[in-house]
């Protein structure tokens, strides 16, 4: 299925290095899009498919960490693999805390680079899967799910939605079934990965 070929977005201000990374990733079988700056990447239309970001840490104006922070803020975040000129521990800690998949030091060996990209793509696939499952929920099931995730008991949910507790139980069971979540924790993770706070209209 050629349309499922994941895209790696390479953002690096060094033309030569970016070209080389693009070639390597293409040779490894990925679709690649290169950007010479964070601004150029931000200007690109939102991407909803499978993919990840390979991001240079040190760039003029908007650097890698700042770009990551902006993307997280906009809840539009592909999994990120960072590339850095030197082993910068504080920067790597910050990046990982904000959800980066890996933090590599240049020059990075292709095995390490491709493994990191692979991990990032796997995380993206998981994200997309979760999104698809959540998309299958009905509006009422969605409402119940968000309240459940917020830690409310069935009785409280029933009172809030003005339905019986039994109805809530049915919805809840269907949510677990459709999302494939086996536990509340898994459900929380799924919703969290979606990067949304609360459903529209929820009190």
């Amino acid at each position, binding site marked *: 299925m050629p349309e499922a070929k994941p895209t790696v977005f390479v953002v690096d201000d060094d033309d*030569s*290095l970016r*070209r*080389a990374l693009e070639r*390597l990733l293409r*040779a*490894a079988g990925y679709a690649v899009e290169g950007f010479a700056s964070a601004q150029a990447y931000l200007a690109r239309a939102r991407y909803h498919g499978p993919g990840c970001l390979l991001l240079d840490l040190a760039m*003029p104006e908007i650097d890698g960490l700042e770009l990551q922070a902006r993307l997280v803020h906009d809840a539009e975040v592909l999994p990120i693999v960072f590339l850095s000129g030197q082993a910068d521990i504080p920067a790597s800690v910050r990046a990982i805390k904000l959800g980066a998949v890996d933090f590599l030091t240049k*020059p990075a060996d*292709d095995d390490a680079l491709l493994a990191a990209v692979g991990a990032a793509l796997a995380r993206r696939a998981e994200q997309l899967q979760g999104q698809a499952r959540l998309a299958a929920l009905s509006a009422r099931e969605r409402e119940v799910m968000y309240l459940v995730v917020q830690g409310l008991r069935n009785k409280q949910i029933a009172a809030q939605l003005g339905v019986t507790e039994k109805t809530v139980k049915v919805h809840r069971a269907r949510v677990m079934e459709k999302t494939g979540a086996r536990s509340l924790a898994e459900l929380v993770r799924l919703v969290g990965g979606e990067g949304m706070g609360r459903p529209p209209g929820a009190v």
Partner: protein
Amino acid sequence: MNLFVIAWSMCAGACAVIGLTQFVLWLREPDRGVYLLSATMSLAAAATALVEIALMKSNEIARYGRLLQWENATVFALIVSLVWFVHLRLGSRRRWLPALITLLWCTTLVISFFFPSSIVFSEIVRLDAHATAWGESYTTAVGTLNPWVLVPNIASLLMLAYVADASVQAWRAGKRLRALLVGGSIIVFMLLGGIQAPLIDAGLLRIPYMISFAFLAIVFALAYELTDSTRRASILERQRAEALADAREAHEGFERLARASLLGELVTGIAHELNQPLAAILANAQAAKRLLAAPAPDFDELRAIVDDVVRDDKRAGEMIHRLRELLQKRASQRERFPLAALVRETADLLHAELRAHDIRLSLELGDPAWTVDADRVGLQQVVLNLLSNAIRALREAPEADRQLKLRLERRNGAVRLIVIDGGPGIAPEVLPHVFDPFYTSNMGSLGMGLAICKRIVEAQGGTIEAHNRADGGAELGVTLPMAKRNA
């Protein structure tokens, strides 16, 4: 043979030498009163010795009496300076005792000049001439003792007590060597001089006065102390020299450290700059490996990879070259040459490069007689650097803008070389840093090159500046002092 005369003269000489030495020391350190006091007492002892010679050779009663008065005067000077010397040197607490001794001796002196035969005799009856075994004659006096002679004798006893007390105090205070030397020598002096003189006065001892000889003990003590302090001074001097050497070594170490840290900075900068091409070469090589593993390798892509690898390798090499240039200690040689010729020559070196990038070069080199006294090779490096920077800026520019202008201008006693390119100019955030050696930007190693230029130009007494032109493009200006005619 006049053994007495010889011995007393030697004694006087010894005392005088020590006295003069102490006096010179006092001149050098006028705030140290002990030197003046020891000088006074030593010189007084020398004078006493001379008076004693005169006494032993005197054969006239009136003269003998006058000489005794003078001996009292010299001993007065000796004792008074000695007692205050002890006070300062041994630091005794009792001030009244030396004051009393001084008072008693002042009284003695006044009384002594009041009586014709001094404070010693009320009347000198006769002078006895004696002969020694070696045939030398000397005189002693016989007469009625003056009751006032008790005053100096009491003073001598007080002096003995005072010195003993001060010595014990100094010993207890830990100044043992000084207590022994000063106190011991003075006690010896007081015992010999203070006992012998009354005995001679009383006619019990029929020998010449030997007060000055008694003082020799003090002379030796002072001489010892003097050489000892000189030795200590030389030790101090050696320690000072050693401390200075240590300080110098520390300073050199610091300089080494500073150089090392500059080197460290360089290495950090260069490592960062080298990392990019190295990372690119690695990624390209590994991409190529994967491409080659394919059943039908993409040769166009492989060719592009090889081109990039070559370029990146050159880029890395250039950085190392520039680093070496910056670190190199090249002796600069000044010579007189026309600037226009140098600029033209250097531009010729880049002719092929200019044509390859379709860059139009225009030269306005003014008067060929404008000469400078400067390091020719260094300046050529500067011009080369400025030109290659301009070419780099123009390579990516639209063809219509690919203009490079070199102009020489005369400006009150200086020549100014202006390099103008029609490129995109220097980014505003980079402009303030173009001459910083380690400012890294997308301009690659440009910063390092301009830092070298600045160093070279300033070493010739010139200046270099960079700014962007209103009509676009960068302008680099190098101003050098014009060579003086017939200089």
